[in-house]
């Protein structure tokens, strides 16, 4: 009886408010939102959110109990998995870390991708675990637009992807490959970077390819595909030149690596699960396209279009986008109030490639921009990025749900199995709510301060020597460099003038 009472209370506004007060991560987030939303929405923000969530919970429950024909949100349980079910499974975790240097430009100079491969149940330590790391000094890369803030990201994405591909190729019995972060990033943001040179690719592949032949084969395969299919579509005017100069346009190269990863996985039986797990994501696509879309559709059906406007005292909350814009809800926030620990949301195809289209690009050694069109890399073409399927998994009451992403081409069961394992691995860190293997590889890939400090000292030394030798003649440039080297501290050079 009391259990029923407890269950029923979940569906009331008071019950939701009590829950929010017990869960600091939700409470804090709502408090932050309350300060940022419009003043008219600020009053009763908690109360109205609780009311909205209670209504959503009721709708979810009505569908589950057959009282509602169409779902608002389909929820699955993934919490029934035990370690005994996954004994003997080989799992590799991949993560990349950046090292920041304390010079005035704040440009990261070091990147390290770590991998942690473990076989559950194996008692022999030397056979149970293998760690790998792949360091990249960003200064060694010729390509990429170093002036862009996302330059380290494009290098890291490439390096992580190569790390994953390498793990898959060298582990024939790999059962699961788990990336820290999105399986595929929102690629439109990275369009327009200056292509990598062959030297850059050699630098990447020197760490990942098991042998020189493989590295050469990977390069050749890409350049062949680029020549025949990709570059003529991206830059029809200058495709030949791109091919002749053996340029590796970053998005084309990354999409090639993704396709290779998927193809390699498809060759295996059973097909290994390839998954990316995202913590503290700001995505709201699931809420906008799935959850609220259904809510608004239902409201329209029942002639309650003004439901939200009435709750919040507004007139402009007429679409999912408007609602999310005004109230600053995200997928993580809404689903943390809707999913119980051990539950995951229904899958949806994540739009990773929206906006991929025409843009500008600068080739290495050129000071001008030329046209490019990345539209051909959108899914449904042989040279495109793979489609990504995702869902949210709630691990514990004290953390936000994590987003799990898989390639939809690798089969329908991938997502559920990935979600189950994500939950299982994350249960070992209930306070963090994130798979413990990714936490391990995160620590392993972390670049220690002493290393970045040492590199920054070398850079400062080399710049200092150049200045002393008079190799930098331009007076303004000398001033800037002196500033770059010393500005992190209040140095005597910059003491206030009398």
């Amino acid at each position, binding site marked *: 009886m009391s259990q029923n009472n407890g269950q029923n209370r979940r569906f009331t506004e008071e019950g939701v408010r009590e829950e929010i007060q017990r869960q600091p991560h939700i409470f804090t987030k709502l408090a932050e939102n309350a300060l940022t939303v419009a003043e008219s929405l600020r009053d009763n923000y908690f109360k109205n959110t609780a009311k909205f969530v209670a209504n959503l919970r009721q709708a979810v429950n009505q569908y589950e109990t057959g009282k509602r024909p169409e779902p608002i949100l389909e929820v699955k349980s993934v919490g029934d998995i035990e*370690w*005994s079910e996954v*004994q003997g499974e080989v*799992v590799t*975790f991949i993560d990349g870390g950046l090292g920041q240097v304390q010079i005035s430009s704040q440009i990261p100079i070091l990147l390290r991708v770590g991998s*942690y491969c*473990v076989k*559950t*149940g*194996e*008692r022999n*330590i*030397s056979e*149970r*675990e293998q*760690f790998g790391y792949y360091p990249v000094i960003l200064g060694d890369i010729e390509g990429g637009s170093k002036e862009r803030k996302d330059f380290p990201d494009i290098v890291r994405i490439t390096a992580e992807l190569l790390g994953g591909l390498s793990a898959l190729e060298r582990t024939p019995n790999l059962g699961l490959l788990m990336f820290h972060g999105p399986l595929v990033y929102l690629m439109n943001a990275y369009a327009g970077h200056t292509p990598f040179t062959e030297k850059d690719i050699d630098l990447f592949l020197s760490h990942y390819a098991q042998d020189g032949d493989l590295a050469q084969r990977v390069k050749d395969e890409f350049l062949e595909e680029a020549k025949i299919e990709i570059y003529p579509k991206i830059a029809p005017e200058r495709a030949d030149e791109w091919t002749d100069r053996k340029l590796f346009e970053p998005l084309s190269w990354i999409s090639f690596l993704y396709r290779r990863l998927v193809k390699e996985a498809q060759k295996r039986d059973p097909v290994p699960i390839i998954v990316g797990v995202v913590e503290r994501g700001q995505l709201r696509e699931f809420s906008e396209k799935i959850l609220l879309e259904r809510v608004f559709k239902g409201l329209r059906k029942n002639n309650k279009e003004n439901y939200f406007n009435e709750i919040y005292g507004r007139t402009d909350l007429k679409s999912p986008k408007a609602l999310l814009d005004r109230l600053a809800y995200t997928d993580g926030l809404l689903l943390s109030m809707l999913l119980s620990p051990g539950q995951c949301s229904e899958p949806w195809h994540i739009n990773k490639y929206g906006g991929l289209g025409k843009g500008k690009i600068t080739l290495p050694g050129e000071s001008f921009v030329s046209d490019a069109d990345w539209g051909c890399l959108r899914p449904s073409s042989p040279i495109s990025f793979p489609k990504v399927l995702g869902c949210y998994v709630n691990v514990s009451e004290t953390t936000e749900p994590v987003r799990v992403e898989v390639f939809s081409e690798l089969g329908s069961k991938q997502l559920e199995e990935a979600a189950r394992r994500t939950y299982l*691995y994350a*249960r*070992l*860190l*209930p*306070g*963090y709510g994130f*798979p*413990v*293997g990714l*936490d*391990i590889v995160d*620590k*392993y890939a972390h670049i220690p301060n002493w290393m970045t400090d040492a590199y920054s000292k070398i850079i400062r030394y080399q710049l200092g020597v150049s200045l002393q030798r008079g190799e930098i003649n331009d007076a303004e440039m000398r001033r800037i460099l002196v500033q770059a080297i010393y500005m992190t501290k209040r140095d005597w050079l910059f003491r206030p003038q009398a």
Partner: protein
Amino acid sequence: MVASEQRQQPKQNQEEASIINRYVGTLVGESTSREFRLAVAHEEIREQDIIGVDAELRQPGNQSSTEKIRIWAKVQRIERLNPLFPSEAGHELAATRTNPFDTVLSLSREMVTAVCQVLGVEPLDGSGGGKLDQLRYPPQPASSAYRPDSSDIARVVVGELQERKNRALDVAWLANRREVDVNVDGHAIVSRHLAILAMTGAGKSWASRRVIEELAAKNYPIVIFDPHGDYTGLADLPELNGRVDRYYARLPIFEQSPETVITIIESLGWKLANTHISKFDDLFKSAFRFISGQDSGKSRRNLEWLSEYLGHSQLLEYRAEPNLYFFADFVQAVVKAARERAERQSEEAKRQRSARGKSKSVENQDGDDHLDQQEDALDKIIELSGYEDLQSIDKKTAGNLEGLPNNLRVAAKRIRQMEDISKRISKATSPLPNERSKLVQYGKISIVALSGYTSDFQATIYSLIASDIFSDRVQNNLKLPVLLVLEEAHNFIPGRANTNAEQNSIATTKQIAQEGRKFGVGLLLISQRPSRLDETTLAMCNSFVIMRMVNPADQNFVRKVIESLGEDEAKLLPDLDKGEAILSGQLINFPVLVKMKPPKSQGEREEKDAFVALEEAYRDNISTSDSRK
């Protein structure tokens, strides 16, 4: 020159290869001239291991001249960390009873770091003779540390002692390298005192017997105060045949000062009243004169008179010894005699008063004659003892002294009981010699058995003997140096004295601890409760053998008092095995963890399996009963 270089090349290569084989770790982080950290491989090293780091140091101001040195260090503690194993995950594993091997947790990436204390530095070629100098410049990070050869370790552990082999006592092995003998400096032990501190069962008697046997092999005179019969087995050693004398502690009461005897009586009987104490000196001295003297026949006659006077026919038979029983009888006689005199004087006064009013009668004259003829017993006692001061004991004083004999007999009875037990336990047949210096003889061990006595009496006996020996040495009446071994030292020199006996004992020991070195009197203190020892006395000991110790109060006390004991070494104390010890102080070059070598002798109280002993006793009982039938 070139040929010589070529010959040296293979030798150098061999040395490098040898160092690689013996490699234990690499210096990491910040190093100082006192401490550094070592990244080590799994299980390559143990706490208290001694390691070496080779280095080159330039002479300040002389760039071309370099000195090749070996830095000696000791592993103080080892830190083991798996940075990739979150403690939160550990709690989850525990809550769900999950084996970490069944999960995706990482168990392989452990960091093992050894924190090493620099012991000193010597020339790399070992030409320093084992003497270690202070390191004045930190070792270079990324240097390799290695496990030195046993012979090299033995050399530095022994230090300068190898050139003075006559002082070396072979008492232990290095705990982590049993092939390395650890010799200690016997001179430091006998001249600057040694303390052996350990909890019960940790092996302190074992360690002390080993030290004593080694000193005995060098003919050093030793006097052992043995409260439990731990050292009786020394007499059974063939090499000590005829060199061990065992004494039971019969205290010649009349050789003590009156103050000492008062202390003994009060510690065994009741506290004396002020009137008893005020007359004690006169009574004690007169009793001594009464029974002693050149002429034994005179003593006998005196006792016969006393026996007749008191009407104790058995006095001659059982108490004809200068002990407290005799003293009690003597005091009783004095009291009786004083009372009688007072009565007589009272009668005389009465008669004189009545005579003033009447004429003298013949009968009365006869009566007067009778009184004059009666002997005054007090005068007799004074005559026999030759001690005039007893004349001052009047009727009132006699009344006050009436209870004293009983008190003396209580104490006498306790002493007699303790003597009987002491004789039985120590298996000793000789009482303590009156002349204490006889206890100290070249090549001999004198064991003073204190078993059976109360701790106060033990302390009294000890302080009397130790004080006499020390005085004899100070006055040069005793020519030989001596080591005094004090087992259960906390009973003799407690931190806080509760009785006069303890006060005396502490004062004597403190004096020896402070001045013994000048006069050749050394102390070997053994205790299982160091925290109850007098702090000053313990601090005067310059050498220590510290064994397993679990009591936190004892550990803290030891850490506080013993300057040479490091923090990390002190933390080892509760985890030491039986027979393992930390040697610290002047007896050794630097503090080391050792395994004490077993002594050759057996202790009286070597533990026997209780159930085996029971079965043996039962069988003996049956066979005795059968034989009676």
